[in-house]
Each structure stands twice: as structure tokens, then as C-alpha cells.
């Protein structure tokens, strides 16, 4: 929480953003800030608008009103490939891998923004050091990997460009409890290495353990925000998950 003084890092900020699909707004006037060098989490139940928020930040959905900035750069209406080229790594929802490509090729896709192939190869070795399992399966088609291995591959692919900010969208989705803990350990390691992380999750307890700040979404609005210590005590968080039936 006191890491704001790292020189140079850019802050991702979402200011009063509304967006959605067709004519209906899913996000309503959402504002969040992702503090450089810390882990910021977005919590919320299914359908709260977490994925729409991420898609909007990354240019996959259009910003209707409001503004998304990364440092000095306004991201509204910028195509996705240009947004990620600013130094944002993305680990998309659902451990998505490119199934008919080998593990190595998946990582090469992650490194496409880097034109120096030697740097890509060196970075791949770093990823293999973090995820030895991927090294064992390097020439295997990604579609034949287990769920846990896919999740590792998806994370490694998002880190290939050595991004300044990593967006991790529901990493625990569809994983066994054992792998969920594994994934949170990886997030913890990334945090210790000083990376800025925006973590979107349903899994409240483990997310609050690793995050520094958080926002709680309910029906497309931010209903609670603050440090994770404060959020633990917030009744809105419980309401956001369990609702008032």
C-alpha cells in the first residue's frame, strides 16, 4: 500500500465508465484505480459486470461514457492490440490456450509483441523455470494439457512480454481447489516481484489474502471499495455475494 512512490509506473484508472452489450448498460458509472506495484482486486458474484469491466478496459467492449487511462494515455476507442502493446499483459478468463498449437507456440504468440526473437526465447526459459511442467510438455499440443497445466500456460503466455501491469481474469474458474491455491501462490510471487496486478475473482477469501486494495461490484456498480482489511469488514461485500433474498 506504500508502494506508490516507485518511480515512473503508470496507473490504470477507470473514471465513471458505462458500457455494455447492445443497448443495455452492464456497467454503470464505474470508477476504479489500479495502484502501481500493488494487487488490486475486483470482486463480485456471477453477472456483476466483472468481465464486462475487464473487456471494456482492454478495448474488447466500447466505453460509452467516462474514461479509461493508463498513465497519460486515454484508452477509449483504442484497439485492443494497441492497448496491450502499452505494457499490459492479459491472462484471460477460463485458462484459455490456443488448443491446436504446442506449448512453445502458445508462448511465442504471447511474445509476438517482442520483435527480438532471442529475447522471446530467453523469456520463455524464464517461464519454464517458474513452470517446470510446461517445459516437460513443451512440444505437446495445448489442447491436450490438463486443466492445471492450461492455467499455467495461460499465465505464462500473459507474462511473455514482461508487462508493467497484468490483468488476471478469474484464474480459479474451473480449477480444482488444489490448483486454485497453486494459482494464488503464483499471483503472490508475481506481486513479490513488484508487478502491478489487477485481479478479477469470485473466490473472496483467497483473493482478499493476496490483494492490497479491492472493489466490489454489484449489478454493474461499485458498492464497496478500499483496502482489503477494510473490505473484510464491509457488509456490502457480503450483500454483493449472498444478496437479500
Amino acid at each position, binding site marked *: 500500500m506504500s508502494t506508490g512512490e516507485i518511480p515512473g509506473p503508470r496507473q490504470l484508472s477507470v473514471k465513471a465508465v458505462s458500457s455494455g452489450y447492445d443497448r443495455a448498460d452492464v456497467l454503470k458509472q464505474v470508477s476504479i484505480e489500479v495502484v502501481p506495484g500493488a494487487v488490486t482486486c475486483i470482486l463480485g458474484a456471477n453477472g456483476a459486470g466483472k468481465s464486462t469491466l475487464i473487456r471494456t478496459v*482492454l478495448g474488447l467492449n466500447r466505453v460509452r461514457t467516462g474514461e479509461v487511462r493508463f498513465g497519460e494515455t486515454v484508452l477509449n476507442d483504442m484497439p485492443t492490440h494497441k492497448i496491450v*502493446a502499452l505494457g499490459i499483459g492479459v491472462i484471460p478468463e477460463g485458462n484459455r490456450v490456443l*488448443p491446436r498449437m504446442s506449448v512453445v507456440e502458445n508462448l511465442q*504468440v504471447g511474445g*509476438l509483441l517482442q520483435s527480438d526473437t532471442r529475447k522471446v526465447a530467453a523469456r520463455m526459459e524464464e517461464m519454464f523455470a517458474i513452470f517446470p511442467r510446461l517445459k516437460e510438455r513443451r512440444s505437446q499440443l495445448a489442447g491436450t494439457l490438463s486443466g492445471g497445466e492450461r492455467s499455467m500456460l495461460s499465465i505464462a503466455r500473459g507474462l511473455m512480454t514482461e508487462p508493467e501491469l497484468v490483468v488476471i481474469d478469474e484464474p480459479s474458474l474451473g480449477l480444482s481447489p488444489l490448483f486454485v491455491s497453486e494459482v494464488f501462490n503464483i499471483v503472490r510471487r508475481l506481486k513479490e516481484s513488484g508487478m502491478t496486478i489487477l485481479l478479477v475473482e469470485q473466490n473472496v477469501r483467497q483473493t482478499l489474502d493476496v490483494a492490497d486494495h479491492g472493489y466490489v461490484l454489484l449489478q454493474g456498480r461499485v458498492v464497496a471499495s478500499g483496502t482489503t482489511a477494510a473490505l473484510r469488514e464491509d457488509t456490502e461485500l457480503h450483500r454483493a455475494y449472498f444478496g437479500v433474498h
Partner: protein
Amino acid sequence: MDMGILAQHLFNGLMLGMVYAMIAVGFSLFFGVLDVIKFSHGDVVSVGAFAALGGASAIGLLVDMPGLSLLFGLLAAIAVGGLAGVVIGGTLVLPLRNAPPVNVLLVTLMAGTILREAIRLGVPNGGNPKPFPVLLPQWQITAGSFSIGFDSVLILIAGIGIILATHLLITRTRIGLAIRAVAQDVDVARLAGIDFRRTVLGTFALGSALASVAGLMLGLYYREVNFSMGLVLGVIGFAAAVVGGLGSLLGPILGGFLFAFVQTLVTIVLPTASAYKDVVAFGVVIALIGLFPTGLIAERSSERV
């Protein structure tokens, strides 16, 4: 049957198979990146043939250098065919990305008709077959009763070279990696920094240039081109791609050679019924689709482009 004539038929079959494969690969590439069937693809073959004819003839009027004419014909075919692919892709196919697939079928079918009619009406006396200039050395290779033009051998080697080069481009280069990533998961590709629009249009340029060069090769081989030559070729290329496995790279190549093999077989075995070779070949296609609904090389097990 005389061995010489048999060899002649087989050679002709190989040549046709290669041309079909070059067209079918385009269908498969487009389906890979956008999940669409672009029915104007066959007419791009005619566009390429006439662009090559125009380029080669223009040089022929200036200097009598067949090699230079051929080079300009080739460049014209690649440029005009590639451009046709990019324009159709960018103005007709991409904007309809979220529309029902039937709309893309209809629109590209109409675009093909426009291309065909543009050649018929735009080229002087375009409704009639046009002689294609002789641009390659006319040496004959003779072995017993088998005799083959050196030019035909060159065309076949060039075609095989182009297909291999396309395969390497898709499997070994950064551009190929981007094309395959877009084909497998558009969102993951974009989130990895791949420019979706540029990759799709690049794929359209590549596939259309291949079909266009196939048109040039047909002109060189048969020494004649006509405005509607792409119509049946488009249907054959589409059939070859579907039978082989739409979305894969190897499948359409296999399908193209298979189609030509059946045609050739009919010509050899039933010389009196050789006029029915297309009927039999399409019959085989229908039977194969019944037996292998996802194509001979199913997308799941093979490397989709």
C-alpha cells in the same frame, strides 16, 4: 492403354490437382480466420489469369522478352488478385462479421458475379476465350512414346514450390503464428497484441494471391483463358477444401489432389465416358462427405491454420 498417353494423363492430373489445391487452400484460410465461406474466390482465379494476361501483353508490346513478360504477368496476378481479396474482405466480409453466415455467402456470391461480368464487359471481346501468350521455352522432353513440354514441368514444379512455401509461411513465421492464433481464438490473439483486422486482411491477400497465380498457371498450361473459367474451379476448390477438412492446411491440398485423381482415373479407365469425369468426381465428393462429415483431416486432430 499406351504408356505414353497414360503418363500424359497422370501428369495432367498432377497439374490439375496442384491448381485445385492452390484454390482450396484459400477457402480453408478464410474459413480459419473468420469462419466464412467466400464464394467469390473462384472468380479471383479468372481475375488473376486476366491480370497476368494484361501485364504480360503490355510488356510484350514494348519488348520481345518472354521472361520479362512472365515476370510482369506474375506480379500483376499477385497484385490484382491480392487487392481483390483485400477489398472484398475489408468492405464486404469483415463488416458482416456479426451477421448470419448466409449474408456473407450471398454477398460474396454477388461479388464473384461482379468480378466475372467486369472481365466479360471490361476486357475487349471479353466474352470469348482469349489466347494466352507463350512465355516459357517450348522444349520437349521425350521418353519413348511419352512426350512432355518443358514448360509444363516448370509450372508443376513452381506450383509445388508455392504450396510448400505457403505451408512454411503458416507454420514457421510470425505472420503464420498470428494467422493461426486468430483462427483458434480471436480474443486470445487480440489480447496477445495481434492486430485482428490486419491479420484477417493479410490472410485474404495471401489466399487470393494463391488463387490468382493458379489462374496464371492455367493460362500458361492451356494457353487460353476465359472470363468464366473460375466458376467451376471455385466449386471444385470449395469441394476439395470441405472434403479435405475446412480450416486445416493439409486437408485442402489433399482434397485438391484427390479430386484431380478421380477425374484422371475416369479419363483413363473409361475413355469413352471421360466427359463425365466431373460428375463422377463430385459424386465421390458427396460420398466422402457422407463418410467423413468433418473432412478427411478433421480439424481437431490436425493443425488448423
